[in-house]
């Protein structure tokens, strides 16, 4: 629709764009449709349908027709302590993974930006967690955490610290244990993004700062960080969202156990929908998750805007 309106006004030309040179272009629609139709049918459509479902009593395998029940699902959800517990766990997990992951990735990116031997090896190894199927990452860490045959407990035994702990089944250890895996699994992407940001920072600025006698920490604060800030904020916002929405890793590691201690919202909603067949109720959970994510995005975008206005100065 947008393009049609614009082609009626060929006079409004943005300088430096193609339109100015080739004139109004009706062919663009043809280029967009092959992707636009599947997006509308299989992504935007289902999303809207999903929101509608949240206001119905849709269930799997039920013979009576689905009824519109207004906000009943949301009212039930409000009193569903198990859901809010899983929501809380989701937040703890998302922050618990994102923050250490960012700090570790920043450290690695700074190291990889130095002229060090073995740098290539670190880069090569960083590919592994990134390329692996999440299910395999989960399986792999189950082998690491295994009570008897796992390398973690064996190392601890060698060091004389404890004698075999069941990390993934312990009420207190399960969440920290899966968080460690989350950090490991997502570190490479963050590292690569930050490293790219670092390599876009002009070297001369560093050297000028060094000549002026600025120490490493001061150079980081005054030169590196301001340049890195936009990319760091964007990747952190995305990581928080991705982690909050994650499923496969924890499904394989603990399947939400023990006693729901690692039951992320996605695991909860999945069970509700595909084990108990409560489609409407699970859709309502999805809506609440979207709302939470939107708030988070808004906060981040506001922060980014503020930072931009201040010219990258740290708030």
């Amino acid at each position, binding site marked *: 629709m*947008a*393009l049609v309106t614009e082609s009626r006004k060929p006079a409004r030309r943005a300088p430096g*764009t193609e*339109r100015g*040179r080739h004139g109004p272009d009706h062919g*663009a629609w*043809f*280029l*967009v449709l*092959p*992707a*636009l139709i*599947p997006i509308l049918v*299989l*992504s935007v*459509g289902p999303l809207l*349908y*999903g929101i509608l*479902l949240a206001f119905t009593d849709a269930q799997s395998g039920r013979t009576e027709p689905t009824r519109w029940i207004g906000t009943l699902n949301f009212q039930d959800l409000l009193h569903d302590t198990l859901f809010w517990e899983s929501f809380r766990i989701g937040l703890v997990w998302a922050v618990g993974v994102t923050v250490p992951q960012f700090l570790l990735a920043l450290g690695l990116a700074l190291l990889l930006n*130095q002229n*060090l031997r*073995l740098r290539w090896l*670190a880069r*090569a*190894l960083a*590919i*592994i967690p*990134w*390329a692996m*199927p*999440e*299910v*395999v*990452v989960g*399986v*792999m*860490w*189950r*082998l*690491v955490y*295994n009570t*008897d*045959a796992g*390398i973690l407990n*064996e190392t601890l035994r060698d060091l004389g610290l404890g004698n*075999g702990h069941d990390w993934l*089944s312990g009420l207190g250890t399960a969440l920290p244990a899966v968080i460690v895996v989350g950090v490991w699994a997502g570190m490479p992407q963050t590292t*690569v993004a930050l490293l*790219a940001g670092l390599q876009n920072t002009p070297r001369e600025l560093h050297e000028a700062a060094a000549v002026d006698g600025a120490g490493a920490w001061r150079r980081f604060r005054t030169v590196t960080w301001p340049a890195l800030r936009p990319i760091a904020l964007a990747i952190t916002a995305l990581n928080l969202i991705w982690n*909050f*929405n994650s499923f*496969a890793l924890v*499904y*394989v590691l603990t399947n939400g156990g023990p006693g729901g201690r690692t039951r992320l919202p996605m695991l909860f909603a999945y069970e509700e929908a595909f084990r108990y067949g409560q*489609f409407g109720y*699970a*859709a309502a959970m*999805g809506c609440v998750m979207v709302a939470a*994510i*939107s708030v988070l995005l808004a906060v981040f975008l506001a922060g980014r805007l503020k930072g931009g206005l201040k010219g990258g100065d740290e708030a």
Partner: protein
Amino acid sequence: MRTSTTARVGQYAALLAYLVFLAFPFLWLISTAFKPPRELGSLHPTWIPENPTLDNFRQAFDEQPLLHAALNSLLAALGAAVIAVVIATPMAYVMARRRGRLARAATGWVVVSQAFPFVLLIIPLFLVLKNLGLINSVPGLVMVYVVWSLPFALWMLAGYVRAVPAELEEAAAVDGAGRLRTLVSVTAPLLAPGIVATALFAFITAWNEFFFALVLLKTPEKQTLPVILTHFIGAEGVADLGPLAAAAFLATLPSLVIFALIQRRITGGMLAGAVKS
């Protein structure tokens, strides 16, 4: 810039710590995959298997339809990658070269789609695909994967288009080439490496995907590798460690190889997409 010796030592120590952290789980997976049952049951496991064996691999193939699952994964990933790239390339071109509302809306959708909790998407998709008779079918999964990999494909491809100087296209236009001619003979060849990288990335993403496959594929003969892998973990979470490790190792090889080949291009594409938008 000169760096003091103490700083250098510190840097190498940190790098070493990172290397260990990144590598040890993977090395442990490989080690476990080649261990005979007796060593797997031992209370004092070793890094290097004392009597390395291929039995775990044989047993993995016996216990679960791994070959069949690999074939399903291959079909799903190949189908998704090819279709996604074919339909995304023209749209990415429009996104990159125009500043119209359509391009802005598309870019906005790409960003927002990263935030979808898939559960809100999968319930309606499940109902729709069920009505179409496409539950428990690889083509149904391909449809979902195409849309799922589109945002990132568009993002990467738009970046590659921007990397092709618009001046080249203008020059062709001045020489009298039509728009289509310009696209086919000037832009497309320059985009080819980026298109291949994007397709490979879409392939890996689909090859690794789990959630949609878990929901949509019901019977073992239709399931993909990641779903079949979870069958090695029993209902009570008890796993047959050796075959589990062997199968997991095999499932990860294709993506590792492809990723190693195209890693630079992916990061390049990510950045090209991110730098000017």
